[in-house]
């Protein structure tokens, strides 16, 4: 690649197709740019009233009493609900598609019972004629609390004698239940090789500790829902979600309804990044609707979103790595303590699967701790857990390279995971693109470009995310004009209507304009798991491919019937049916489509998949920074993002994911944090104070797509939505180190943190 001239957007393609790999205009583009797309806040129904949620002012307290009588007496109030309106879940567990979860945890997060576990925890809700009436009535609800001391970080919560969040939470220790009441929900371990021997073989051992702050996904559209509890007992919900079937199943479980009695329509979604998978207000709105007899809409404020929904875990990480003088990594050890927030479920398992995934190291031990703290119950956020982990690992890898006097990319290349490398959690990697990503980084013009001037530095880092498969369904109907309608159940966050439609178009030899994709409600398509895990273009795309093949095979039979030939003699090439049985017959898809009614009736193709063959994705960054030594401000001079897409179905959308993930990773690195006071109150719960990067803070994020085909997908696609957020904090820390010789081990690396590190380096103590 070194002989190529510089391009801001490179696609290192290895295979080309007719539709896949092109850049058509997205199907929902016109509606989005003209304001006609229907978002949750746009939903209105006859008799609609409005809900609001009362939230805890305490981070940790017992609820001694709730008196709603004054609110109920408000003339505009139609209903008030508390946890008393939901059945006690007891020890019941539910499987919502991502493992067993105690229903009580989900239910008690929706409306607190007995205790509030974080400031912003929902306590009660009101429905009234207007939002203003509902908010006014919240002030009439009297809650008596007994405040308790909060614990706000994993190390604090893990101490002996720490204030306990749950009266019945005991530690599962290395897979075995214990009787020990604790804030540590579980401790697990992955082991590979002999860690002691590994460190004994090492010539250089580095060990450091790292802390990362709680950060939010920062989707611009707040959570919203409209629910109607119909007179026949059926519940309809219109909501902004990444998982309509998850909302359906969770709401049904909480309200003790069969799933068939709940219908969820996903509206357009203004960002999610993992944060719009859990359920918060949908069952509450449904209960208010049941009590009031009206459809009820709830729209969160920004403070509600930041204080009452799931951010990503803060963490305390220890990493120790050993390397030989020849650059061979021989041992790696990690302790990952992740904050779950109020209920167990920190993203520490995926963190453990990613922390050393980029490297082929023979001796590894990884300990993970899932720790509850008095913060909102955490949710997924783009490669959940992996960014924290890579911040630690990549710091040490770069420091090793510096001490060994070798190029940091060469050290990574010399130890890079490849097909057959055994991961610390057990399985061997299938075909992956770690080496190719590193090679692209090393040969990119950015890496060899001069970087001159004081207080400037260049950094590099890589990261891995394994991606997901999970169930998806798709139906395709053929229209008489030769077009098809494609129905799927994956909410479209990043252009997936089009990336899925393109895969069907490729199979059927159609122009993309002849595919009309729709995301529909839970009664109108087969079960489809969440838009998460970078799975939609892979798994729902695979469903679309198979549905399109089903259409193709049915149409071949129709063509054969028309021509009076055996269907086995009919072939399909780029949208044309051809029979070469003696005389050659040819008919295009568009010519056959209007003849379906007369040859047997409409054709509908369908497929349901739960695919193996998921392809993990590696991402890397090269970043140049300049530090202002007087203020600590970090200015990004140049940023290039690299990622293995397998096959970029729609390269522009892949680039968009890479740029979006990079921007979020930069915000996580340099500015964002839940700034908590000692009482557990978030002091920056507005977008003015919770400082996400804006376009003015960022340079152009150049991209380089690497294509190492995933053998588990017909076009080679890998998920691309997540791995891109992993390397930015580590790459920026490396660049800052190279600029001003400080070692940043805490996120965010904001001006205060940078100045403190500079002062410490210079021996300034005051």
């Amino acid at each position, binding site marked *: 690649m070194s002989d190529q001239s510089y391009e801001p957007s490179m696609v290192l393609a290895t295979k080309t197709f007719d539709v896949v790999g092109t850049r058509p205009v997205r199907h929902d583009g016109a509606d989005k740019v003209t304001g006609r797309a229907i978002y949750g806040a746009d939903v209105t129904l006859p008799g609609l009233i409005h809900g609001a949620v009362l939230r805890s002012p305490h981070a940790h307290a017992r609820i001694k009493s709730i008196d709603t009588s004054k609110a109920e007496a408000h003339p505009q109030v139609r209903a008030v609900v508390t946890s008393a309106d939901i059945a006690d879940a007891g020890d019941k567990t539910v*499987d919502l*598609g*991502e*493992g*067993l979860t105690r229903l009580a945890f989900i239910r008690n997060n929706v409306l607190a019972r007995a205790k509030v576990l974080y400031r912003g925890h929902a306590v009660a809700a009101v429905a009234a004629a207007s939002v203003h009436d509902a908010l006014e009535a919240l002030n009439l609800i009297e809650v008596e609390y007994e405040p308790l001391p909060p614990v706000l970080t994993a190390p604090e919560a893990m101490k002996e004698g720490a204030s306990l969040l749950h009266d019945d939470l005991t530690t599962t220790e*290395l*897979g*075995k239940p214990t009787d020990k009441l604790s804030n540590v929900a579980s401790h*697990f*371990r*992955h*082991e590979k090789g002999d860690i002691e021997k590994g460190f004994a073989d090492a010539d250089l051992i580095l060990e450091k500790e790292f802390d990362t702050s709680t950060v939010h*996904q920062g989707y611009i559209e707040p959570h919203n829902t409209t629910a109607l509890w119909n007179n026949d007992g059926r519940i309809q919900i219109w909501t902004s979600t990444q998982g309509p079937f998850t909302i359906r199943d969770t709401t049904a479980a909480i309200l003790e309804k069969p799933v068939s009695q709940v219908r969820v329509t996903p509206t357009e979604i203004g960002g*999610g*990044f*993992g*944060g719009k*998978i859990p359920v918060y207000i949908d069952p509450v709105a449904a209960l208010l609707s049941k009590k009031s007899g009206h459809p009820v809409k709830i729209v969160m404020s920004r403070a509600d979103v930041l204080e009452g929904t799931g951010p990503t875990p803060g963490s305390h990480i220890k990493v120790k790595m050993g390397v030989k003088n020849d650059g061979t990594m021989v041992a790696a050890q990690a302790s990952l303590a992740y904050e779950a927030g109020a209920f167990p479920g920190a993203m520490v*398992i*995926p963190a453990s*699967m990613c922390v050393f995934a980029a490297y082929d190291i023979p001796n590894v031990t990884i300990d993970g701790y899932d720790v509850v703290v008095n913060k909102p119950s955490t*949710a*997924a*956020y*783009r*490669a*959940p857990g992996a960014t924290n982990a890579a911040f630690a690992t990549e710091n040490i890898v770069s420091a090793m390279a510096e001490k060994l006097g070798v190029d940091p990319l060469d050290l990574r290349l010399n130890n890079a995971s490849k097909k057959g490398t055994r991961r610390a*959690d*057990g*399985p*061997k*990697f*299938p075909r992956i693109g770690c080496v190719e990503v590193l090679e692209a980084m090393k040969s990119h013009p950015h890496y060899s470009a001069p970087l001159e001037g004081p207080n400037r530095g260049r950094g590099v880092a890589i990261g891995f*995310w394994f*991606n*997901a*498969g*999970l*169930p998806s369904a798709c139906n395709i109907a053929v229209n008489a004009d030769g077009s098809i309608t494609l129905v799927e159940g994956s909410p479209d*966050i*990043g252009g997936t209507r089009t990336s899925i439609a393109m895969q069907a178009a490729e199979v059927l030899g159609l122009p993309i304009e002849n595919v009309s994709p729709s995301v529909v409600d839970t009664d109108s398509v087969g079960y489809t*798991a*969440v*838009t*998460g*895990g*970078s*799975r939609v273009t892979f798994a729902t795309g695979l469903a679309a491919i198979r549905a399109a093949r089903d259409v193709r095979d049915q149409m071949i039979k129709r063509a054969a019937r028309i021509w009076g030939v055996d269907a086995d003699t009919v072939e399909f090439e780029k949208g044309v049916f051809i029979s070469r049985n003696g005389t050659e017959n040819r008919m295009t898809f568009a010519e056959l489509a209007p003849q379906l009614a007369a040859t047997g009736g409409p054709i509908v193709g369908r497929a349901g998949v*739960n*695919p*193996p*063959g*998921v392809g993990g994705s590696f991402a890397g960054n090269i970043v140049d920074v300049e530090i202002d030594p007087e203020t600590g401000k970090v200015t990004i001079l140049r940023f290039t993002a690299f990622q293995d897409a397998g096959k970029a179905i729609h390269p522009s959308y892949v680039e968009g*994911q890479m740029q979006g*993930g990079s921007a979020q990773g930069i915000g996580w690195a340099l500015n964002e944090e839940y700034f908590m006071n000692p009482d557990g109150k978030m002091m920056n719960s507005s977008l003015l104070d919770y400082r996400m990067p804006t376009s003015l803070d960022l340079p152009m994020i150049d991209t380089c797509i690497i294509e190492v085909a995933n053998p*588990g997908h017909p076009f080679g696609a890998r998920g691309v*939505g*997540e791995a891109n957020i992993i390397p930015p904090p580590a790459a920026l820390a490396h660049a800052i180190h190279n600029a001003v010789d400080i070692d940043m081990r805490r996120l965010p690396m904001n001006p205060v943190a940078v100045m403190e590190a500079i002062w410490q380096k210079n021996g300034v103590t005051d």
Partner: protein
Amino acid sequence: MATVFIPGSMRDLTGGQAEIEVHGSTVRDIVDELDVAHPGVKDWLVDGNRLKPSLSVAVDGVVSPLGLLQDVEGNSEVHFVAAIAGGC
């Protein structure tokens, strides 16, 4: 025979063995056979007629959505790993 890699947290059931060779043509066969030699393994892995929802099985490096129904070859590697998805 397939090679089953025993998770660290399950090794007290296998006398500390980390790798066990087992006959079987499906993951279900393998779990049943393991449970004969090492009682308690099935309870650890299986809930009713399927893998516990918190677990997935990877055969030859590929996580299988079929769980206990997944076919296993004679030289396959079988791992029981955490079942998780992701965020975006």
